[in-house]
């Protein structure tokens, strides 16, 4: 099944949840409506698509230019040996999306990472707390609005550069 066929099949299955479809280096990319992410991915998890692997879940900050964060989901189907990338935009003012917890086990940690780095809330997540930064860390360091040299030491440090 080529990328065009896959896009066609997914569009047929998901209907209006898909806003647009493109192609990136031979891999299909779909733009989803944010509120449709969880049901859409739940459908892709099942046969005939059978996207059993959530390869990655990450986020891009377009807050300054376009006022939105873009969530990026990478799926892989072991049965069909195809990859699928899905994107959904959430408003920068109150970034929130439905959690994928319960669909893929690793989504829990990936969502915690996105929450930690970008401050996107995932509704329905069983334990949404910081994953990588430490207790007492303020802000979300991968946001463009985070001061790029702001350090938050845990112990008193000697004066540095």
């Amino acid at each position, binding site marked *: 099944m080529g990328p065009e066929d896959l896009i066609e099949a997914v569009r047929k299955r998901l209907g209006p949840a898909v806003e647009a479809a493109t192609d990136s280096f031979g891999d299909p990319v779909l733009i989803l409506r944010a509120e449709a992410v969880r049901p859409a991915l739940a459908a892709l998890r099942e046969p005939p698509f059978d996207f059993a692997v959530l390869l990655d879940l990450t986020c891009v900050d377009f807050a300054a230019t376009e006022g939105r964060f873009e969530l990026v989901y990478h799926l892989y189907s072991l049965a069909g040996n195809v990859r699928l990338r899905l994107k959904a935009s959430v408003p920068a003012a109150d970034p929130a999306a439905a959690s994928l917890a319960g669909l893929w086990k690793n989504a829990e940690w990936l969502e915690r990472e996105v929450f930690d780095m970008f401050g996107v809330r995932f509704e329905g997540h069983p334990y949404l707390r910081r994953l990588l*930064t*430490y207790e007492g860390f303020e802000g979300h360091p991968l946001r463009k609005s985070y001061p790029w040299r702001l*350090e938050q030491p845990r*112990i008193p440090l000697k004066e*540095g550069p």
Partner: protein
Amino acid sequence: MSGFDFLTTRFETALGWGRKFSLFHYPFITACCGMEYMSAACAHFDIDRFGAGLTRFSPRQADLLLVVGTVTHKLAPVLRTVYDQMLEPKWVIAFGACAVSGGIYRNYAVVQGIDRIVPVDVFIPGCPPRPETVLDGLLKLQDKIQGQRQDWRWARKT
């Protein structure tokens, strides 16, 4: 052995000589510089030739702390604790660009040089440093130890 029936030296010099050739090091390895550490420590370059071959995996048994790799703010208290656990006399080597200055990382996560956390005796730059550079740094530390006023804890009390 005529002509070498006796030898005079200062006690400090003898103590420094003993200390510089019996460094027990604790490798605090966090990143890719660890590969160069392994190369320097194993048979090919062999830091044991210079008397620093005995790796201790407890800071309580070590007197040379090798900080090899990037140290983040999350890790900083750990490094401080490790240093505090070591017994006097103790020395620290910052191994690699990240430990020296933060290296290529200038962001929210990375400490800009471990001398902001613990006192450092020798900085070994390089990304990563070649094993020869590491050996050179070790020799510089040995020079420093030899030249130091030796810290005699038992003598100081009197």
